[in-house]
């Protein structure tokens, strides 16, 4: 019974198949359009050349001395007609007319592409370039030429990678269809603004240099006809933002937004960022807006599977940032794989070619999920700043070591590759250790500096935006999506009311406990409590989440309320409650090696399992008989063949051995089959003569058991014929997993008075009505929260088998569990068989994207 916890369906809801509608893909349409245009151009050229050839031919004839003047007249007339036709065509199809220059351009592009050193970049660049309209390509081709002419090969490679990154933004954005990418929009006029001197290094002062320049688009986003700036930056060695020119560009955007020249601006960064730039951009205090308040900063992170995960580092003041979604990588590997296979076959194929097997892909997807988890945690505790600013290379080779001080000095391609690989590995390692999410400091409690209306509103709006950006998360957290402004205001009001209530309770309690005559705190310590004296506080985000559920609750649904505490029990009442309970639960999984599918039979009983085993045996015998038939047929076929390949000779030998085995077992098989038939007839006869129904059943059962024993014998004989267990396992369906448990779970919360309040946990079926730990504790601080699991032992006694810290709302340290154990003992609960487990499976903290704005 050690595996309670991971057999429970906490994840069932989220693992439900994700449905995504297949949409028409703008990139595919653009590619179709491009190929049509190329075809049209070719046809046009062919026609034009045709007329030119005709004219040339006439010219030859005109020079021919044999041509009569009569004929010449006709020919001249003809030539004129052709010339007119050419002009007509050139006017009518003016877009194809200047094809000479275009053809040259195309050739040049092709030559440049062939010079791209890395195959993966070359492939992607070509593919992405074809996805955008021809006239927009020029800018990228020019940049490509620039990068390729760089003598430093590493710089050249990183440059091209950055270009591919930039181009892929267009692709992602058009594919997601959340923003309009309009290649035909007009460039906004030049912007005059105050920037820094080109070589400036001190950015603490206000910029004073008058500058003027044009805004150029990386990706031409349009919002209601107005331009929206979207810049993509890829900096793997240098820290983005350390140069004056980079900051100036953002200052230009800020000014352009303030003047209404553009709708907004987003800069998306991949790689490293200058930490001072972050401070400059976001401001260091809560109230400070930073130097570019209206510019949004997004960070893109590459996951182990190669997919991207994007999150907002800094929002724009108007909250009108770029609309984007992350790929469905935070789902389970199985459902993600299924989704890719069914809905995105091209991505699936790419992963297959990269990782070889589905198993390996699934491993990578599982890693993706862990990394995303770690990313969210590091955003919460701000360690993300170290991840996105530092070099992050551990255990470098002696050769690489001297370059780490300034990675831009790396000039050797192999060292750069080492740098890149180690950097990724180190960052992944760091993120994986981030998965611990204990609440140690009560930083966002109801009595903290965050308990303000502004903060609640900000975090609520950001959470809603986060759900929009991560649709797969939104599907899981559907209940947390608010339908409009009115609901948002309702939630804010509710949160503030709850915060006030909790705050006044906690502050009064603190005052009370700090009184020297009050020994509550010492008593807890004596019993092994080691956390903060004030306990573990519920944070604002979780109060918000509860308020959302309460506001969103539909008729007949339970929301989240900190009132009506009588709904729950004191743990002492559990002792009376348990003896009458029986919660045996059986579940089996049947694996079919032929289809590769596993079928789960949930909530079954012993009879079902027995019956299933017999059915499987029958099915397997049928399968093995078919297999033997196949062997015989194949033997015949090969035997008659005159010119056999060496492989076929080998196969024939094997088949002969099989058939020999069949011959040898033949008699035994016949006799077992015979006895099965005999038993069947006997069973019918015997049952008929018996009049008592219960006895009838018993007789039938007795015979059935005998029959299945014989059938097993038969299966064993067949198994030998086809080549033993290995061959058998290839065709035989079997029960691959069996869950057999008798378990009751409670969620618990320990209050300041040592009371343990419990609520029975719904562990199967519809779990939407489950109570939250915050409800048990009325939102107040706790000295422990998680789950208690009781199991029925062989003697039919319920016994406490697990105490854990599984509360996503409070996230207490597992250290609180020993205190809980002591308390339970005091209350007369047997804890001799209990296991303490560190688990925060239930519930997840809301990702907080505000890290840099604190």
């Amino acid at each position, binding site marked *: 019974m050690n595996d309670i916890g991971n057999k429970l369906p906490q994840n069932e809801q989220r693992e439900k198949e994700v449905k995504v509608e297949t949409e*028409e893909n*703008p990139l595919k*349409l*653009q590619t*179709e*359009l491009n190929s*049509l*245009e190329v*075809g*049209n151009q070719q*046809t*046009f050229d*062919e*026609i034009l050349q*045709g*007329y030119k*050839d*005709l004219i040339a*031919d*006439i010219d030859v*004839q005109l020079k021919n001395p*044999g041509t009569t003047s009569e*004929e010449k007249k006709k020919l001249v007339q*003809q030539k004129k007609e052709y010339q007119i036709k050419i002009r007509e*065509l050139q006017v009518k*199809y003016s877009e194809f007319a200047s094809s000479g220059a275009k053809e040259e351009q195309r050739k040049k592009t092709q030559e440049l592409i062939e010079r791209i050193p890395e195959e993966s970049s070359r492939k992607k660049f070509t593919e992405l370039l074809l996805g955008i309209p021809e006239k927009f390509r020029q800018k990228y081709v020019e940049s490509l030429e620039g990068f390729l002419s760089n003598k430093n090969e590493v710089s050249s490679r990183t440059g091209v990678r950055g270009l591919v990154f930039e181009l892929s933004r267009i692709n992602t954005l*058009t594919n997601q*269809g959340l923003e*309009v*990418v*309009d290649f035909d929009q007009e460039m906004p006029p030049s912007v005059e603004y105050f920037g820094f001197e080109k070589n400036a290094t001190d950015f603490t002062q206000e910029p004073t240099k008058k500058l003027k320049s044009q805004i150029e688009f990386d990706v031409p986003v349009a919002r209601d006809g107005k331009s929206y700036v979207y810049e993509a930056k890829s900096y793997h060695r240098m820290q983005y933002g350390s140069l004056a020119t980079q900051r100036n560009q953002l200052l230009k955007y800020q000014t352009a937004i303030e003047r209404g020249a553009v709708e907004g601006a987003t800069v998306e960064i991949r790689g490293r960022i200058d930490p001072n730039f972050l401070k400059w951009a976001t401001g260091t205090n809560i109230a400070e807006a930073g130097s570019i308040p209206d510019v949004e900063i997004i960070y893109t992170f590459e996951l182990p599977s190669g997919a991207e995960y994007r999150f907002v580092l800094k929002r724009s003041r108007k909250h009108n940032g770029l609309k984007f979604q992350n790929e469905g990588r935070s789902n389970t590997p199985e459902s993600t794989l299924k989704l890719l296979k069914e809905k995105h076959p091209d991505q699936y194929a790419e992963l297959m070619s990269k990782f070889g097997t589905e198993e390996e892909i699934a491993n990578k997807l599982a890693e993706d999920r862990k990394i995303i988890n770690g990313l969210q945690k590091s955003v919460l505790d701000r360690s993300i700043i170290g991840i996105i600013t530092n070099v992050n290379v551990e255990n470098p080779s002696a050769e690489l070591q001297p370059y780490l001080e300034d990675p831009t000095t790396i000039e050797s391609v192999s060292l750069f590759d080492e740098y890149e690989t180690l950097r990724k590995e180190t960052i992944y390692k760091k993120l994986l250790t981030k998965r611990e999410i204990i609440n140690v400091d009560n930083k966002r409690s109801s009595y903290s500096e965050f308990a303000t209306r502004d903060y609640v509103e900000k975090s609520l709006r950001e959470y809603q935006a986060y759900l929009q950006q991560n649709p797969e998360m939104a599907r899981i957290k559907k209940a947390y999506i608010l339908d409009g402004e009115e609901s948002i205001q309702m939630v804010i009001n509710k949160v503030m009311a709850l915060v006030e209530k909790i705050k006044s309770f906690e502050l009064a309690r603190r005052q009370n406990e700090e009184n020297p005559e009050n020994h509550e705190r010492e008593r807890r310590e004596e019993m092994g409590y080691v956390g903060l004296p004030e306990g573990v506080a519920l944070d604002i985000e979780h109060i918000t989440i509860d308020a959302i559920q309460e506001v969103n609750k539909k008729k007949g649904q339970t929301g989240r309320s900190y009132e009506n505490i009588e709904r729950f029990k004191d743990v002492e009442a559990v002792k009376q409650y348990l003896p009458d309970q029986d919660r045996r639960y059986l579940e089996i999984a049947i694996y079919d090696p032929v289809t590769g599918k596993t079928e789960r039979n949930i909530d079954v009983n012993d009879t079902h399992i027995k019956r299933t085993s017999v059915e499987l045996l029958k099915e397997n015998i049928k399968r093995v008989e078919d297999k033997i038939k196949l062997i015989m047929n194949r033997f015949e076929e090969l035997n008659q063949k005159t010119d056999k390949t060496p492989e076929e000779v080998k196969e024939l030998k094997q088949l002969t051995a099989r058939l020999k085995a069949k011959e040898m077992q033949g008699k035994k098989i016949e006799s077992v089959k015979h006895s099965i038939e005999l038993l069947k007839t006997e069973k019918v006869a015997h049952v008929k003569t018996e009049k008592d129904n219960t006895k009838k059943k018993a007789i039938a059962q007795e015979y059935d058991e005998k029959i299945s024993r014989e059938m097993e014998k038969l299966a064993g004989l067949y198994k030998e014929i086809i080549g033993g267990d290995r061959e058998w396992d290839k065709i035989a369906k079997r029960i691959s997993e069996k869950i057999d448990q008798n378990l009751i779970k409670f969620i618990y919360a320990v209050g300041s008075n040592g009371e343990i309040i419990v609520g029975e946990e719904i562990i199967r079926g519809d779990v939407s009505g489950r109570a939250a730990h915050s409800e048990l504790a009325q939102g107040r601080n706790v000295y422990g929260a998680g789950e208690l699991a009781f199991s029925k032992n062989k003697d039919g006694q319920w016994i406490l088998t697990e105490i854990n810290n599984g509360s996503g709302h409070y996230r207490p340290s597992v250290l609180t569990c020993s205190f809980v154990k002591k308390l339970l003992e005091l209350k007369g609960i047997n804890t001799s068989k209990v296991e303490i487990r560190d688990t925060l499976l239930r519930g997840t903290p809301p990702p907080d994207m505000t890290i840099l704005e604190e």
Partner: protein
Amino acid sequence: MKKIDLLKKKIDKAKEKRQALLVELKTLKTLVSKQGQNKDMKKIEELKKQLLNNI
């Protein structure tokens, strides 16, 4: 969706152009074969003349 509609429109236009160009190409091919035929006829005439002269 706006973007997709735009692209679809462009594709439709390009397809229309394709049709028109194919018609043009057909016309051209007829012209080429006609001119070729004329030339062939002329050559035959010349050969006839030469033959007659030689007799």
